């Protein structure tokens, strides 16, 4: 029995103004560029709002993991509004709560400590990417 291999879209909120927006973005990039290249992919959140056909198709045809910087959950809401399927929704602050010794700083981009936290977060999310890519969604 073959297993489906899909792309998995990892969508951060990229909120500017709070460190957790920057942490969400760094975590997504870590997954896309280093931890799960070729499987994890991303798209621009505002493209969903302006109904860009490619971006909308991407989130409708593939499972999506959202990483939001605050409880307002902009990434999750935007994907759902575009008709996409949010398979897993996370808040970036959760990773800080689990690793209190790594306090991130920076608003447009996280600092070195934030990068370390993003690396850990990406490794944790990699398991979800693998499950979703293999069609083993829980």
């Amino acid at each position, binding site marked *: 029995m073959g297993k489906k291999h899909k792309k998995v879209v990892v969508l951060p909120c990229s909120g500017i103004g*709070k*460190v*957790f927006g920057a942490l969400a973005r760094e975590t997504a990039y870590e997954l896309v560029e280093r931890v799960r290249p070729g499987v994890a992919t991303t798209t621009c959140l505002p493209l969903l709002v302006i109904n860009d056909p490619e971006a909308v198709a991407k989130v409708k045809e593939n499972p999506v993991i959202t990483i939001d910087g*605050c*409880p307002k959950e902009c990434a999750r809401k935007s994907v759902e509004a575009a008709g996409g399927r949010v398979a897993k929704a996370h808040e970036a*602050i959760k990773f*800080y*709560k689990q690793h*209190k010794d790594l*306090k*991130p700083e920076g608003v447009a981009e996280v600092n070195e400590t934030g990068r370390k936290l993003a690396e850990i977060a990406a490794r944790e999310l990699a398991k979800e990417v693998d499950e979703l890519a293999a069609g083993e969604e829980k």
Partner: protein
Amino acid sequence: MAEFLEHTYEKFIFKVKEGYLYSQDEFWANFQSGAATVGLTDFLQKAKGDVAFLETVEPGLEVKRGDEIGKIETIKATFGIISPVTGKIAAVNPEMEASPYLINHDPYGAGWIYRIELKDPEGDKAQLMDAKEYFEIMKNKIAQEAKKLYG
């Protein structure tokens, strides 16, 4: 009576709930038949940022107005929860353990922290500000902060 007094500064809308009483330490008390629900003001939660950790005291503890009855840690700061009233902790908001972000999301409603059985409600009320009085203090604080930032 409008539900909130509102003050806009830049893109931020600071709210003060009518009918609550306020301490100088930026905590509110909602008095209801022998007890008060307490929490922090919209101004304080905006100033300090998203709540990551919350440390609370146990129900049953006797507290005095001005006592520290817990700690809040955000990405920006760690600060004490200062009781605006005197009495006994009757309950801690059960949602706080899983969802401390409610303090930011709904500081005057779902983000309440404690219910306190009151020992001296009239004495407490005399020391606290009503919404209009606190609103003026809050506006001054915002203006002072802006002066510090922008000169």
